[in-house]
């Protein structure tokens, strides 16, 4: 690299940070300290398959930190950018995650005008190997430990009269290590890469203001030459989207996909997706929606339609006190999803107490999976700065209960 290029690279960040105001920067930051406890008293097998070393989760409390930061601004008239960074660090055996030390960084560049939208994104996830578990990833023979993930994506949407086009591509690269057993049962660590390309294209035609039809194509290519994990599915669909008035809106979609993949049940070759979402407002205070999603497939061999899953979700929210910082509200909902044992009932209350202090409490119960309750007390120093204390307790049906206390702050500047 030439010395001139090095100077430019060194000077650019200096110019950027000394000319913050020129970019119209907005920053959002949330930092929380977390304390985790569980009632597990013995080894826990979170991951399927081989684990090089079993670990024990004990009742002693563990500490962690979660830091999220987002900066957004304008580069030029139609060009904006966002930089996001999430850092999660905690003691080993902390929470039910596959890694206890990772950093997510994302850089997004947007171009928008009246009829076009372009997003270019690079995302990087870095793991600390000492705090990352081994996984059994499909298509990889050995247990693998993720080191780093790169996602380079491009998304374009264009409007040309009655036609709309959407194009998306993502090159995903996973850098991992795996263990092989050498002589004397010693483990040897090897490095490798796993590469996938995900792409999607959709062309839609607006028949009227509320009806549109579209064709689409999804293609996934596993670049590690494992054809069985390739996937392609062209689709065709019809969509109805109508906001009748301020109080009523209905959106429905029916899509047929022709699935071509080797690693998934052949019965799903002819795949039907039906979605409906009805939104209703009663005045300014009460609102709600009903969502229904059905997934079905047609098996040619048996000439029979099979039900894959149904999801019905009903949600209602009543806002009863408007305040400078945020509303006070009560919400309640039900999710019905029998095929995946995902039935759920939930409720939440957020109440303004006094002197810019809010209390939020929630509970949800999924009979087959878990029950959880949470409470959060938040003090707004200004409308853009708050500190909060949050406690969340979850009792799982098939694994130990956990409790997380978080002390955090949210800042916008």
């Amino acid at each position, binding site marked *: 690299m030439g010395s001139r290029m090095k100077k430019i690279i060194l000077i650019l960040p200096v110019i950027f940070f000394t000319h913050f105001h020129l970019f119209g920067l907005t920053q959002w930051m949330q930092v929380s300290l977390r304390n985790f406890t569980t009632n597990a008293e013995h080894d826990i097998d979170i*991951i*399927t398959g081989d684990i090089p070393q079993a670990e024990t989760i004990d009742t002693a409390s563990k500490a962690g930190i979660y830091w999220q930061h987002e900066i957004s601004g304008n580069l030029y008239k139609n060009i904006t950018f966002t930089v996001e960074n999430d850092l999660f660090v905690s003691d080993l055996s902390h929470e*039910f*995650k*596959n*890694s206890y030390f*990772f950093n*997510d960084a994302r850089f997004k560049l947007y171009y928008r005008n009246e009829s076009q939208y372009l997003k270019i994104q690079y995302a990087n996830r870095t793991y600390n190997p000492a705090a990352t578990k081994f996984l*059994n*990833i*499909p*298509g990889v023979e050995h247990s693998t430990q*993720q080191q780093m993930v790169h*996602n380079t*994506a491009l998304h374009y949407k264009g409007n040309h009269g009655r036609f709309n086009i959407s194009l*998306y591509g993502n090159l995903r690269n*996973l850098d991992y290590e795996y263990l092989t057993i050498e002589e004397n049962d010693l483990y040897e660590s090897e490095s490798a890469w796993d590469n*996938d390309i*995900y792409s*999607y294209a959709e062309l839609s035609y607006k028949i009227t203001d509320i009806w549109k039809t579209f064709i689409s194509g999804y293609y*996934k290519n*596993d670049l590690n030459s494992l054809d069985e*994990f390739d996937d392609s599915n062209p689709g065709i669909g019809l969509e109805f989207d109508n906001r009748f008035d301020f109080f*009523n809106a*209905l959106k*429905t979609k029916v899509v047929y996909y022709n699935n071509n*993949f080797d*690693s*998934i*049940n052949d*019965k799903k070759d002819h795949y039907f997706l*039906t979605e*409906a*979402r*009805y939104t209703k407002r009663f005045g300014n205070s009460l609102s709600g929606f009903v*969502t*229904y*999603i*059905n997934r*079905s497939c047609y098996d040619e061999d048996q000439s029979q*339609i*099979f*039900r*894959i*899953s*149904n*999801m019905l*979700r009903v949600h209602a929210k009543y806002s009863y006190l408007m305040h400078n910082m945020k509303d006070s509200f009560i919400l309640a909902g039900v*999710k019905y999803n029998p*095929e*995946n*044992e*995902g039935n*759920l009932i939930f409720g939440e209350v957020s109440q303004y107490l006094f002197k810019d202090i809010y209390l939020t409490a929630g509970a*949800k119960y*999924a009979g087959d*999976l*878990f029950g959880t309750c949470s409470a959060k007390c938040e003090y707004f120093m200004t409308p853009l700065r708050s500190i909060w204390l949050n406690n969340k307790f*979850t009792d*799982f049906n098939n694994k130990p209960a956990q409790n997380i206390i978080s002390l955090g702050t949210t800042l916008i500047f």
Partner: protein
Amino acid sequence: MKRRLVYMILLGILLYLGCEKLSNPEYNIDANACNSCGECIQICPMDAIEFGPDGKAVIDQTKCNQCGKCITICPKDAIH
């Protein structure tokens, strides 16, 4: 509008009652409910979830082993 809603509900009931359940269903993410927090990506033991075009999490069905861990971790109950 009400008539259309009734038709939709009737269609749903027919699909539910008239079709046999597939032996191994699949998990999907409701993009309307997903808040892009990434918790499911971190819990997935098969490395099967990533963010899609609209920034919402998407399950790669070729990798998913239907363990269901993402369902319990999702704060918005968006996975079904």
